[in-house]
């Protein structure tokens, strides 16, 4: 299917979110759509799939001007949208999810389960997924859920599949499988629009790329003829000279040391330490136990054995309250479910862990709060119209800065950042690295867990590599390379 969207305009109220935006996807093509958060990618795709109506502009499908009136209309025209937050019901079976709202009925008007299961199985096998279609969604991995969504798209004979950040929650193995399937489908004539922040994936998978900024079409490039820097500068509108600004600080005293930390089935015999003014990177595949260790140190999940020392003193951290009192801050990987209350204001979120310090005679001093919040909004360059807006209205990068502000106000001596730049656009990423550097200069001990190797290599002083619950190796930054880290992260290198 060939799709050409030209001069698309769309406003919400007074805000124009798309200005002459467009994209041209050819048949049998994997087309990347890139832009910072808020650039209008999702809105453009929602117009293509009938979620929103365009104000003006033209959509051509296979050379013919078409209007897409509703989601159902978009589906009938062969366009499927696989959202980042998968649209599956966890308590229902695979087959029920695939046929949701489009159930096949038998001559009695009842749902024809046998036929549905047969068709579902067919499509699943096509994707190399050999599972019983009656398995509940919650019993299969996130990677497989993604494939179920693709199978669903095939079921409605989609000729264009739009995928929004499909790999965000997948393991490397699952990503490889997904890419293989996408390429296979492309050979069979399916086109893809692929939205992702992960530049490496785009170069690996896509044929063409369209870059958007501030709701506008900026340019289209052939992947083979462009490079990382060109795309980034098109996205941000200026040259981003250095992706990973680095500062060198002489590390001070040991702040945290962990000895023989074990939680059976999650991680085992973990030993490491972090010093003042030092960034310890944590690398490893998803599910290798990195996040669990951080939650254990923060007192959020218990561990079976081992000891944690803060400033050389043994401590028992059995709740986040104790952790905070000891000067630990924790920026979790799941911003939406663990970091922020999206329906609460920027100010309310920002002071959540530090609220106790803003009281006088037990009463909260609201004036003092808004002063401090304003100070941190300025310091971290949080782009928000005011403090009272719901934090859910901010872009991913600015939300992340609010989470960081939340912990900086508590003046931590150890700050743990778990995937601090996930879902954050390139410009904001660099700002976050600069904040990390600033903290390093102030002598804060930092742990950064990250799945992005260039990031870990770019900001860490030492890198701990995890594999299946074990800490395989701690590299000094001088000896670390992507290859070496991957070797240890995948179980080799011993």
């Amino acid at each position: 299917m060939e799709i050409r969207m030209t001069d698309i305009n769309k406003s919400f109220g007074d805000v124009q979110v798309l200005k002459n935006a467009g994209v041209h996807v050819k048949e049998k093509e994997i087309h990347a759509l890139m832009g910072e958060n808020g650039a209008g990618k999702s809105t453009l795709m929602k117009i293509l799939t009938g979620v929103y109506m365009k104000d003006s502009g033209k959509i051509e499908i296979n050379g013919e001007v078409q209007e897409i009136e509703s989601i159902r209309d978009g589906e009938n025209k062969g366009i499927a949208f696989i959202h980042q937050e998968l649209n599956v019901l966890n308590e229902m079976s695979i087959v029920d999810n695939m046929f949701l709202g489009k159930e096949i009925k038998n001559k009695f008007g009842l749902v024809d389960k046998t036929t549905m299961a047969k068709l579902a199985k067919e499509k699943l096998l096509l994707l190399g997924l050999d599972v019983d279609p009656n398995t509940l969604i919650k019993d299969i991995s996130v990677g497989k859920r993604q494939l179920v969504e693709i199978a669903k798209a095939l079921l409605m004979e989609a000729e264009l599949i739009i995928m929004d950040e499909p790999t965000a929650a997948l393991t490397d193995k699952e990503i490889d499988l997904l890419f293989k399937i996408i390429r296979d489908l492309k050979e069979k004539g399916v086109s893809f629009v692929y939205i992702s922040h992960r530049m490496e994936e785009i170069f690996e998978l896509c044929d063409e790329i369209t870059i958007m900024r501030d709701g506008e079409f900026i340019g289209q490039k052939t992947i083979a003829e462009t490079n990382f820097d060109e795309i980034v500068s098109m996205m941000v509108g200026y040259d981003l000279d250095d992706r990973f600004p680095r500062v060198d600080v002489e590390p001070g005293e040991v702040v945290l040391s962990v000895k023989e930390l074990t939680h059976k089935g999650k991680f085992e015999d973990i030993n490491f330490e972090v010093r003042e003014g030092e960034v310890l990177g944590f690398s490893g595949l998803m599910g290798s136990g990195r996040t669990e260790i951080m939650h254990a140190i923060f007192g959020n999940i218990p561990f079976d054995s081992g000891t944690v020392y803060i400033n050389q003193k043994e401590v028992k951290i059995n709740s986040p309250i104790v952790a905070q009192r000891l000067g630990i801050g924790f920026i979790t990987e799941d911003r939406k479910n663990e970091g922020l209350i999206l329906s609460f204001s920027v100010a309310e979120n920002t002071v959540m862990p530090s609220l106790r310090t803003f009281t006088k005679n037990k009463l909260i001093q609201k004036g003092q709060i808004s002063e401090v919040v304003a100070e941190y909004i300025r310091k971290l360059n949080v782009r928000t119209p005011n403090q009272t807006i719901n934090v859910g209205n901010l872009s991913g990068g600015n939300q992340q800065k609010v989470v960081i502000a939340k912990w900086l106000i508590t003046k931590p001596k150890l700050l743990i950042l778990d995937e601090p730049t996930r879902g954050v656009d390139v410009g904001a990423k660099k700002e976050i690295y600069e904040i990390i550097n600033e903290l390093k200069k102030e002598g804060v001990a930092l742990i950064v867990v990250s799945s992005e190797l260039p990031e870990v290599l770019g900001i860490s002083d030492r890198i701990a590599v995890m594999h299946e619950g074990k800490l395989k190796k701690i590299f000094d930054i001088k000896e670390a390379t992507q290859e070496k880290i991957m070797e240890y992260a995948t179980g080799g290198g011993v």
Partner: protein
Amino acid sequence: MEKLGSIYNRFGTIIVLLALMLIVTIINPQFLTMYNILNIFKQVSINGLIALGMTFVILTGGIDLSVGAILGFSGMILGLMITGGTPDLLAIPAVLAIGALLGYFNGFFISKLKLQAFIVTLATMTMFNGLTLIVSDGIPASGVTKDAPVLDFFSQGSILGIPFPMIIFVVAFLILLILLQNTVFGRGVYAIGGNEEVARLSSIPTNRIKTWVYVISGMMSALAGVVLTSRLSSAQPTAGAGFELDAIAAVVIGGTSLAGGRGRLFGTFIGVLIIGVLNNGLNIIGVSAFFQQFIKGLVILLAVILDRKSAR
């Protein structure tokens, strides 16, 4: 409808209250007399006290179905203590402590054992009702206020012409308002309802706060039990039946989301008055009791619809 919702959100339930008062007054001007207004406050104070406590619970995303049962039990204990010779000045605080203890019992299961509030308080409601029957043998304690001047003052007393139940309600409202709006505890209540996991990871003592909201709810219910026992001058074994629903209705009419995290104590205050004005006003304009039920239900439904619209 969207617009209606946002107006409702901004000006709260006050518009609904004023509109109701206006309608009733037009039909029967007798409604808007000082005497009747004070009377309404007197009538709503019991439901009001429970609803104030219930607001804390609902803001955390919980629910307390056992409030009526706690009211009944504490009223009965009060009746038995006083008829048994305990001075009322001693019996009243004792009963408040019992209410708090029963609330703690709820809170313990809900926060520590992570059980669903609906199920826990449904079970304890039945248990506490049973306890009331056990201690009373199903027999009311009567003539309770005869030699208990302090207890009698709880319903019959007045200060500067203002009935004492109204004073209790308003003072309790003001104290709880400060607790909710201006203390770390109160903000924690909102945070838990907003997203408990985020709250916990922000080093907010979620378990402790969740336990405490049920303690507050239990204590407020016991206080309501004291006022009711004083008013009836007797303790009935089934006195508490149905109070939970009126309290929840007042909270919801007041704009607090049953999902937690969003709502205001002032809304509950107005919600309580709306229910009071409905009861009183429909009586005054001579609507039959059957219709009264129906209209009350309709108002609750309307409030929820408006609330839903404004939340979008």
